[in-house]
């Protein structure tokens, strides 16, 4: 039988199974193979709550989704075309998202009575007709790998574990991806245990061949290379990209990188990544809590390192007081918040963009701080680098607002040439900075930054601290006039950063009916929605804010050119609040907090509603 190969532009695939089924790994391998093929892509993992739930339950389902295509891909896709369901629970949880007519690849061996019951299926959906309207590929994956690996050294439990590789093999066949990279990877990963490596490879090949030979598959798909800018690429998650951006900034500034952090979902990978970089002059300090994390970072900044601290919402809440200290002592510091759903512990593994107001205004007193938000995983690199550069140049803490969707999601990253990254000039006064009147730790340069005099420098001994300080001299001052001056300087320093923001790029016409404004990880869905609207001939453009404090200087002028403004946010309207106050004009809002990103279609609908 010859099988059809259908050329498609893009596809969205979701792998779903029990937490123990290795879906994250399977997804990652598929992603790597897809990247190597040259497609653009975006991925997003979706695992359940923080706790390992019992096998086979709905709560225990773990998933991984990616979208890839021959044109630019901006999101991990809305509704999957293909769903891999390793057990009944996975099917139960994810079926509702599957496109009508989509493919279901299921491990029928897992559809036992017990599992079906646990997942809340009355009967076996694979056989009772309830999946009508979908294309179901029901495969005895467990049995098939069992057979294929009969002669391996693995225990039967070990053999059963390779079934995800079988599924991967089928998918590789189905979407015409190469298996070699995964073979290589498995051999390297299990170098000490070749029999495991070979068993997994065999399982994968069995799956691949199963697709090729059995009759249940009639069609496979090919997706052409995407027209990405020329260059070297790798796939990267936002969390790793943040870590790399900070390392790069430290190198470019000739500084040691210091991280003070406390583990928290979904930010921990930044700590993990940096902990592994001891040979990069990176010092990581796993502190006793978030307060100690930022405090140690403040201490390290004082002593001369490029200092940073990483966390998520509740941890950010705990850092509130210390952020005030960094602001008043005017020390450089990068504070990363990988947002998650709240309030309180809330929805720790789900994404949300709802810490914006906390970042911009969530402190006692008028305590202004620059806030930057990356728009996709690769942009996490640039934003981290930029945050560090600004912190060092303006002697100020900077908040980087990522989220779980960016941090744990991935996409191709065009690897920059390290040499092309801008140098970051940092200077420390030496003994000659001491005048007859003494050393002036709160004197100001052209950007109103104060000098970064390091302990260990002879003659510049001075004291800083959380009490208000006299401008220039740095003496403790509770003087009325001075407090106003210092408050104004602190606000101005942040405002000054606006001049660093390049002219805003507008996607679409620079004048029109609707301008959709976004920040952070909504970029992709907005982009897709706006692109579709433009295709439909609608007068819609997109403006994306990377800096949310300060706002870009051209913000108002741009907005003035549009009749209507729309802000979609995965929160109840936080940027909208700030922009309404800034622009003094009504703004359409699209808000949802469901622990998941927008679908482009949701934004499209809203655009249509506005355009009437």
């Amino acid at each position, binding site marked *: 039988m010859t099988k059809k190969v259908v050329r498609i532009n893009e596809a969205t695939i979701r792998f779903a199974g029990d937490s123990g089924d290795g879906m994250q790994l399977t997804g990652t391998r598929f992603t790597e193979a897809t990247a190597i093929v040259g497609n653009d892509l975006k991925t997003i993992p979706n695992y359940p709550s923080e706790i390992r739930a019992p096998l086979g339950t709905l709560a225990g389902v773990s998933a991984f989704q990616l979208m890839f295509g021959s044109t630019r891909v901006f999101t991990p896709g809305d509704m999957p075309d293909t769903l891999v369901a390793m057990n009944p629970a996975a099917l139960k949880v994810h079926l509702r998202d599957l496109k009508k007519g989509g493919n279901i690849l299921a491990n029928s061996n897992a559809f036992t009575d017990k599992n079906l019951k646990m997942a809340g299926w009355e009967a076996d959906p694979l056989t009772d007709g309830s999946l009508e309207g979908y294309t179901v590929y029901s495969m005895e994956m467990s049995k098939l790998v069992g057979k294929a690996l009969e002669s391996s050294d693995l225990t039967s439990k070990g053999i059963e574990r390779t079934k995800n590789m079988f599924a991967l093999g089928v998918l590789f066949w189905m979407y015409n991806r190469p298996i070699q990279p995964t073979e290589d990877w498995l051999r390297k990963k299990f170098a000490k245990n070749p029999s495991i490596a070979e068993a997994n490879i065999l399982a994968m090949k069995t799956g691949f061949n199963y697709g090729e030979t059995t009759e249940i598959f009639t069609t496979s798909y090919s997706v052409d290379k995407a027209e990405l800018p*020329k260059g070297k690429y*790798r796939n990267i998650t936002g969390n790793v990209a943040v870590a790399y951006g900070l*390392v790069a900034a430290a190198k470019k500034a000739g500084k040691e990188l210091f991280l003070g952090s406390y583990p928290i979902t979904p930010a921990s990978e930044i700590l993990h990544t940096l902990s592994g970089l001891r040979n*990069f002059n990176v010092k990581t300090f796993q502190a*006793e809590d978030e307060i100690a994390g930022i405090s140690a970072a403040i201490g390290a900044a004082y002593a001369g390192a490029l200092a940073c601290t990483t966390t998520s919402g509740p941890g950010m809440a705990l850092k509130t007081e210390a952020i005030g200290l960094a602001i008043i002592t005017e020390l450089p510091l990068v504070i990363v918040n990988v947002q998650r759903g709240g309030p309180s512990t809330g929805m720790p593994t789900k994404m949300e963009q709802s810490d914006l107001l906390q970042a911009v205004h969530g402190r006692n007193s008028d305590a202004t701080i620059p806030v930057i938000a990356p728009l996709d995983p690769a942009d996490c690199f640039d934003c981290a680098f930029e945050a560090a550069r600004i912190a060092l140049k303006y002697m100020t803490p900077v908040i980087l607002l990522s989220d779980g969707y960016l941090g744990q999601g991935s996409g191709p990253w065009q690897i920059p040439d390290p040499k092309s990254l801008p140098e970051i000039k940092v200077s420390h006064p030496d003994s000659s900075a001491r005048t007859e009147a003494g050393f002036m730790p709160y004197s100001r340069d052209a950007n109103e930054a104060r000098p970064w005099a390091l*302990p260990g420098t*002879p003659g510049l001994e001075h004291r800083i*601290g959380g009490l208000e300080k006299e401008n220039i001299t740095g003496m403790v001052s509770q003087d009325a006039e001075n407090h106003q001056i210092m408050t104004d300087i602190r606000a101005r320093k942040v405002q000054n950063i606006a001049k660093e923001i390049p002219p805003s790029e507008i996607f679409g016409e620079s004048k029109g009916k609707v301008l959709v404004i976004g920040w952070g990880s909504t970029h992709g869905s907005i982009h897709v929605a706006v692109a579709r609207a433009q295709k439909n001939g609608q007068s819609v453009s997109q403006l994306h804010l990377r800096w949310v404090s300060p706002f870009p200087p051209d913000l108002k002028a741009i907005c003035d050119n549009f009749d209507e403004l729309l802000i979609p946010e995965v929160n109840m309207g936080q940027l909208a609040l700030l922009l309404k106050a800034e622009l003094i004009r009504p703004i359409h809002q699209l808000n949802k907090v469901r622990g998941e990103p927008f679908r482009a279609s949701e934004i499209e609908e809203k655009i249509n509603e506005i355009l009437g």
Partner: protein
Amino acid sequence: MSESIIEIEELNLTRKDFVPGNEVRWCPGCGDYSVLANMQKTLPIMGVKKENYAFISGIGCSSRFPYYMDTYGFHSIHGRAPAIASGVKLANPDLAVWVITGDGDGFSIGGNHMIHALRRNIDMNIMLFNNRIYGLTKGQYSPTSLLGKKTKSSPFGSVDRPFNPSAIALGANATFISRALDVDAKGLQESIKRAQRHKGASFIEVYQNCIIFNDGEFEDVENKASRPDNALFVVHGEPMIFGKDSDKGIIMNDHHPKVVTLGKDWTEKDLLVHDETNSIITNLLLEMTFDPTNPTPFGILRAVEAPTYDDMLVAQIKEITEIRGEGTLENLFYSGDVWEVK
């Protein structure tokens, strides 16, 4: 650990080098003055360059200390000094880092950072001004105030049992613990010297009189006349003797410390010998703190050697860098699966 083996670089520093121009703003008669003076006297002879001292404090009367030392100083926020100091030391291990804190700053809000700093054994010196009161906020009881203490926030007497800060330090596995008295210059200087020389986290508890809100709290030992009978100054390797006439000593009795009078029944040889490396001895001394039948122990209560966090971190960086080579951005960026778009 003996003084003679430490070579002191001739730096020609004097006390004056450590006195800044600004005014000291503690209440007249506050015990903090004496500690400050002894710090300023002792640091010049420690063989550390002036610019390498960094004083980190929290908030409280005592935490104003850095403003009165002409060294690098950071008067931070309430309770966080040990954490900030950890960052300072790790970022620049060449610095001689001091943490100045109070019983409120260090053991109320800051208790957790305190025990973690001691546990990690980061090489820094933590000096606790224990006046058993919140001075700066005008006189509430603190976690070291004695049970029944009447203060602004406990007008009928507090129902909080107190901490024994040095005992917490021992529980946290601190490698150096000493206790000194604000009015005892010799003891203070000894503690400062030994702490500064100790590799690892040193904890110094200073009994300090707050003349405004808790005057006389330590009267029995502050008072020169009653001090000899109420204070036990321990010295490593020497028997535990005290008393105006040096006629009293401590023995171990059924696993409890007990005071005996030398002479008829007891001789020096029967007495416990202080061993600063033995945690049971330290524990026994600390048990005497609140016990009216025993004297209050002062001196170097504990000093053991252990690897420091900062040394181990630096060593690990060195080792990994030797094995892997110094990381470059190229190494880093290309560490995953890379493909090229041509």
